[in-house]
């Protein structure tokens, strides 16, 4: 029967479209990789194999400084956002409290708000509060590392919370009840039952937060100070001036870093699915 419907569909056209889409998605990435090893000074032309451009990266102190800022911002903001996001996910999924609906709505906003609006908000907020602090206490603060971290946490809490909530929603609530029936305290039930079960969601949320933090250009550009710029903002300013073989090499490094993160999250999901199956097979396992 389904043969009849399939015959009418131009399968070759669908197949062509499918291949074209995959080619469209991967060709740019692969070509970027290839051209980063090209010896030609013109970035889009092939001039023999070289690793020279990667070597030049090690001499660029500005680049190294921005890489270190990026990594520190990503790590610190991810830790804070993961803790806060997980707490809010637990509160929203497992508890009723006053202001819950407002909180819920507030946590959706950073996800849907455009980058540019978020950037504008943070810029105005910091300049206003710095003026206020200077007027009241006479201390002059300027934008820098801290403002970048604060802004990244502000959008990452929401993303972590969404990922963790999805995990909690798919979790069996009776397990926690069973723990408390067995005289576990609230803390024990959380530490030994809830936390291990939601851990994959928490890790997934953290990986997303790292990715978003390392991806962000617009918000960071608005809240960075003169001395502290992240790698994407620096590279963005370089690209605007034109393409160079060095940017090719930096881009490939950023590409590899993000692919490692993807591999991490895919691996995590696999490991989970595997462990889930194992647990099903050995029902009653205590670990």
């Amino acid at each position, binding site marked *: *029967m389904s043969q009849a419907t399939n015959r009418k569909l131009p399968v070759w056209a669908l197949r062509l479209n499918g291949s074209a889409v995959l080619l469209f998605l991967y060709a740019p990435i692969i070509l970027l990789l290839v051209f980063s090893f090209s010896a030609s000074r013109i970035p889009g032309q092939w001039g023999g194999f070289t690793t020279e451009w990667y070597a030049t990266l090690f001499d660029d102190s500005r680049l190294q400084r921005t890489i270190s800022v990026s990594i520190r911002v990503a790590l610190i903001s991810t830790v804070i956002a993961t803790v806060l996001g997980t707490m809010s996910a637990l509160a929203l999924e497992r508890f009723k*409290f006053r202001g819950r609906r407002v909180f819920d709505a*507030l946590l959706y906003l950073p996800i*849907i708000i*455009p980058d540019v609006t978020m950037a504008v908000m943070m810029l105005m907020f910091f300049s206003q509060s710095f003026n206020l602090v200077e007027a009241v206490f006479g201390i002059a603060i300027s934008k820098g590392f801290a403002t970048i971290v604060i802004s990244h946490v502000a959008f990452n809490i929401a993303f972590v919370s969404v990922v963790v909530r999805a995990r909690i929603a798919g979790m069996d609530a009776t397990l926690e009840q069973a723990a408390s029936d067995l005289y576990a305290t609230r803390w024990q039930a959380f530490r030994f039952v809830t936390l291990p079960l939601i851990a994959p969601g928490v890790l997934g949320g953290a990986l997303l937060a790292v990715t978003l933090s390392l991806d962000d250009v*617009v918000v960071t550009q608005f809240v960075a100070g003169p001395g502290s710029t992240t790698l994407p903002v620096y590279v963005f300013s370089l690209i605007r001036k034109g393409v160079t073989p060095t940017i090719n090499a930096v881009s490939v490094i950023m590409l590899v870093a993000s692919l490692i993160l993807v591999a991490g*999250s895919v691996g995590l999901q696999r490991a989970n699915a595997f462990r889930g199956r194992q647990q099903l097979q050995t029902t009653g396992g205590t670990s």
Partner: protein
Amino acid sequence: MSVGIAEAKRDRNERRRGLLLALPSFAYMILFFAVPLVIVLVYSFATRTSTGSTSLSDWNLDAYRKLGEPIVRNVVLRSVVLALVTTAICLLVAYPFAWFCAHQRPVVRNMMLVAVMIPFWTNFLVRNYAWRLLLSSGGPISSFTEAIGLGETNILFTKTAVVIGLVYAYLPFMILPLFASIDRLDRRLIEAGRDLYGSGSQTFRKIVLPLTMPGVIAGSILVFVPSMGAYVTPELLGGGKETLLGSYIVTQFLTARNWPVGASLSFVLMAVMLVSTIIYFRSGGKNL
């Protein structure tokens, strides 16, 4: 009676626990998100003084009125048109792709979906840069068209380049919801349509399309909304020749120093997102 009191007490304790758990992030979100949002709203009613600073003393709608002026109106219109074109192309490409994907063996299907997701997870700036490299004059695409006798192509810094970049960035957003709704489609309904002598296109228009509409709406919103506020892609691939909404807002803050106009535009942009999101949820979309 005492049972009821104990229960009420436990209930109150639970509520307190929930609030305590939510409090740190609640406080954070209010201080570093809600307050900034309110500041933008307040500024959108303020006046720009001749020195470029902002005066909050008299509130007015000047900044919003300015949105009707030809310059700003053209920027908004251009952004809307570009976002619509991007959405249409994504829809035309993604629908057959999602259909093809949904009709594969589970192994192939999962591989295809992962293949769509991987570029989406890679660094956004790098994805845009890759296109800048490909389209650059003397770059791979230009050399290719020259080699096959079509002459050099110079589409970098045009609207076409921006649309290519936007389609590249947001195509997965279209494919995934479409796949979800096509996968849910009951194939027997198509057969029933054919059994009742409906032609291929009739069956598609009367059965398949209406049933997969939630996916079409969700995907279109997920592509339209970020395309509308895009900043990085137009800057890198459009070369800033024709200003789009995102770049225009950034300019108002970083160079023109007209904060009220920038604030009012940001607010309008956000309102578009909010309305779209509500439509998205109404259409049955569940995850963002």
